[in-house]
């Protein structure tokens, strides 16, 4: 019992179930039928092939930022700057992508690489400040989040990038697209093929199916390998868990912090790159507030207990709830705030789930105590 309850996967599932229970109560209190609402939510997430496809697409950037945050947590850093790094990645990807005209693989790689690089440097700066000057990464990265947002807005307004008649930049050129067969599916031949395959028509034909999700899965596997099986990963984890012992053992702690932040930032940047190249509108618009892709990554990393592989599932859940929330709104009329509360409640229970094993332990102790007392009653002469 205790062993099962210590398993992070089980804990997460319990947290999610508890989250839905509390969410039902909230829905009930808000005057919406809870069972009906939850069913509608799940249906809008998984009801049709198109929905599933959309959920995956919607989840991809969140999985990437989740991976970035989870990686940072594994190395002892709290990368609340994922949002800013993601925004920087988006701007740079759009800037580079709208100027490039190269053969496909080269263009794609250049866009993704530039987004990764800039985001990595942006995060690396936070790591540098922490390593050299001892400034906590949370403080610097919150500042840098805002700087990234305003930088993004500023670039949007530059004549060179601004697309007239819109509030955003010129979108990236089609040569940088990472969707699956974007040209073919619009061609006559493609249309004809899709018409014969209703499922493919709904998914590939109607949504921006792209390679981002696949890349996220590969990234999660690579990161797991890096952390657990390599010299570098050993160092990063050692620094993350006990910086003093790591320093004592001769690990270059400062370098580790900078590298960890850079890798974390690069993951956020890669997510941004895939978002810009893989989903319409393929551009960045002037923003009045954060889009929360990075902040949602924080929640994803928490739900996943910072396991990279877990981030894939947590990201899908998160993307699903965000996407399904829209369905809940249109079908039941519940406001999106409710769906945000549901998400909040789930994250809250995940954060509390470390209490579950303790609770189980207490139950176990009570059980043993009871048994013992019973035994003593059976043989009352044990005690002198």
């Amino acid at each position, binding site marked *: 019992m205790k062993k099962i309850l210590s398993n992070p996967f089980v804990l997460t599932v319990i947290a999610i179930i508890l989250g839905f229970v509390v969410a039902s109560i909230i829905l009930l209190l808000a005057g919406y039928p809870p069972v009906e609402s939850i069913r509608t939510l799940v249906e809008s997430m998984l009801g049709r092939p198109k929905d599933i496809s959309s959920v995956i697409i919607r989840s991809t950037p969140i999985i990437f930022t989740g991976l970035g945050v989870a990686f940072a947590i594994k190395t002892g850093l709290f990368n609340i700057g994922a949002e800013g790094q993601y925004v920087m990645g988006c701007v740079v990807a759009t800037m580079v992508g709208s100027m490039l005209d190269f053969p496909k693989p080269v263009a794609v790689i250049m866009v993704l690489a530039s987004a990764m690089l800039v985001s990595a440097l942006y995060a690396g700066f936070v790591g540098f400040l922490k390593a050299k000057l001892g400034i906590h990464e949370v403080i610097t990265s919150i500042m840098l989040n805002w700087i990234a947002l305003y930088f993004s807005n500023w670039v949007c307004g530059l004549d060179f990038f601004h697309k007239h008649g819109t509030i955003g930049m010129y979108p990236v050129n089609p040569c940088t697209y990472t969707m699956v067969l974007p040209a073919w599916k619009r061609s006559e031949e493609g249309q004809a093929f899709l018409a014969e395959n209703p499922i493919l028509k709904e998914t590939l034909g109607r949504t921006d199916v792209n390679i981002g999700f696949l890349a996220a899965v590969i990234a999660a596997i690579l990161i797991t390998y890096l952390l657990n099986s390599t010299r570098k990963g050993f160092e990063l984890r*050692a620094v993350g868990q006990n910086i003093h012992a790591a*320093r*004592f053992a*001769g690990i270059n702690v400062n370098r580790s912090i900078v590298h960890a932040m850079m890798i974390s930032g690069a993951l956020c940047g890669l997510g941004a790159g895939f978002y810009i190249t893989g989903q319409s509108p393929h551009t960045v618009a002037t923003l009045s507030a954060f889009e929360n892709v990075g902040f949602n990554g924080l929640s994803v990393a928490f739900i996943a207990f910072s396991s990279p592989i877990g981030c894939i599932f947590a990201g899908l859940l998160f993307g699903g709830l965000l996407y399904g929330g829209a369905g809940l709104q249109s079908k039941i009329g519940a406001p999106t705030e409710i769906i945000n509360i549901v998400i909040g409640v789930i994250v809250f229970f995940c954060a509390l789930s470390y209490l579950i094993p303790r609770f189980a332990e207490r139950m176990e*102790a009570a059980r043993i105590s009871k048994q013992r007392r019973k035994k003593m009653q059976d043989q009352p002469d044990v005690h002198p």
Partner: protein
Amino acid sequence: MAAEVSSKYAVQMHGITKRFGSFYALTDVDLDVEKGTIHSILGENGAGKSTLMNVLYGMYQADEGEIFINGKKVDIKNPTAAIAHGIGMVHQHFMLVENFTVTQNIVLGSEPTSAGIGLNMKKARQNVLDIVKKYGLEVEPDKLIRDISVGMQQRVEILKALYRGAEILILDEPTAVLTEQEIDELLAIMKNLIKDGKTIIIITHKLKEIQASSDVCTIIRRGQYIDTYPVKDVTEDDLAAMMVGHPVNLVVEKTPAKPQEVVLDIRNLYVKNEQGIDAVKDFNLQVRAGEIVGIAGIDGNGQHELMEAVNNLKKCRGKIILDGQEIQNKTPKYGIDHGLATIPADRHKDGLVLGFSVYENAILEKYRSDDFSPGGKIDRKKMRSFTEDLIRAYDVRPEDCGPKQAGGLSGGNQQKVIIGREIAQEPKVLIAIQPTRGLDVGAIENVHKMLVRERDKGVAVLLISFELDEVMNVSDRIAVIYDGHIQQIFPHGTVDNRTLGRVMAGGKVEGDFADPSEVPEKTAAAEAAAAETAAEEAAAGETAAAETAGAAAELPAGTEEAPGEPAREGLVPAAEEPLRETGPESVPDMLRTLADMQQSLAQMQQQLADMQKHLVDMQGRQ
């Protein structure tokens, strides 16, 4: 076995059982503490003695069993209830507010008020002074905690308990952080408290202390009650055997050292502390291959900063030369790569990554070698087999701990992992800082054996410890650190605790305990240096010393074999006799000896008086 419940006992705990999950920390333990006595609870680390006291103090609730205070059954739910029953506890780690004054700390939480609102610190101060006077616990009420010594802080803790009306005092490892003199003072304070009718319970695993302080001793082993004895009826060896469960060798067995060339040479070292003040100043020390040099000293005299500088955790001025290579102001890795291994003082902070498995901790330094991570990929097979060997060689328990978190091991086993790991580095210099802190007798014996074994393999061992007995037992030379520099160096077996204690407090012992390692340096420069020392000492008017040092300078330069031995004989004619503080006979020296004797006489009289009083008490009771 449990005594009958009676009001002659201050504390009676009967059939106490305490579980943590399915682990039994205490099983059916009995404790009967007579009023007005000092009662020791002896046990290895993890035996459950602190748990038992925490049950008494209300920090834990016993799963089974009863507690009686003065013959009345009580239910102690929390420390507040314990205080209400007149129980006070002084924890091993003091719970004081660093930047509050002594008075503020003592009254904290039960401050006297005027008209029920405003603090009345004047009254508080007076209250404190009253208690101070009553028990002879001298403290300076207006000093800040951070400015007073550890011994003084402990008194503040005791005062805190007394201020709250404690009749029963629990002291958790009270002497762990004290110097020899402070221990004596503490013992005197305890005797005073007993005279006033208080009852004291001491948690300890130090056998010597029990003999010195306690009337009765209860032994606990692995959560089980073993026995209770009047202390005068048992010997240290008996106690040790009962505590561990098998006979223990209390004295470190070792052959005389065979020191060879200097491997670690620290010259004119200056290191700043956190406040930017030089905590290590003009520090000079040589450690030779095949010897153990122990640094004795009171905590806070630069030991920590010295370690930081040697391990390159901090910048310093001066030179640290390891086997001919200057290693100062580089990186920690540089030192490690040049043959430095360190057993850190704080194994949880500096020694282990507690969340890592034992496997990973075992290769915390080796992981970067191509042996363990060819091509940047950790060789798990190699990691496992290496760790399994280490676990076997150092008897780490449980044997199957390899894949488990290091944080789950007991302190002694964690230390074994660290020691095994550091020794596996095949270092030229091994620095051990407080290597037995918090370990029990059996584990201490083990650690000391390992240090001696390394010495015999030709490693230069530097032992830094606040435990005087440890330094005296293990070291071949004892270097006393005071105020950031080496105050004096003594060869093994030439000084006693008391003398060392005086040097640790900043005194100097007359007589020539010259450092043998400084003399037989084969270079002309060293000879000149020796002559210089001689000249200096001569200038200071120490004619006797000058003669011997001069003789040393005249020694043939090339004493090839065992350079330490003949040199010392030549240099210190008196070293063969058991030297106390009678060195060259000078008037101030003799005066000091006389003063010492008077002091011990006074102590003996005091003890005699105590015993008489005790006798009268007993007769009165009968």
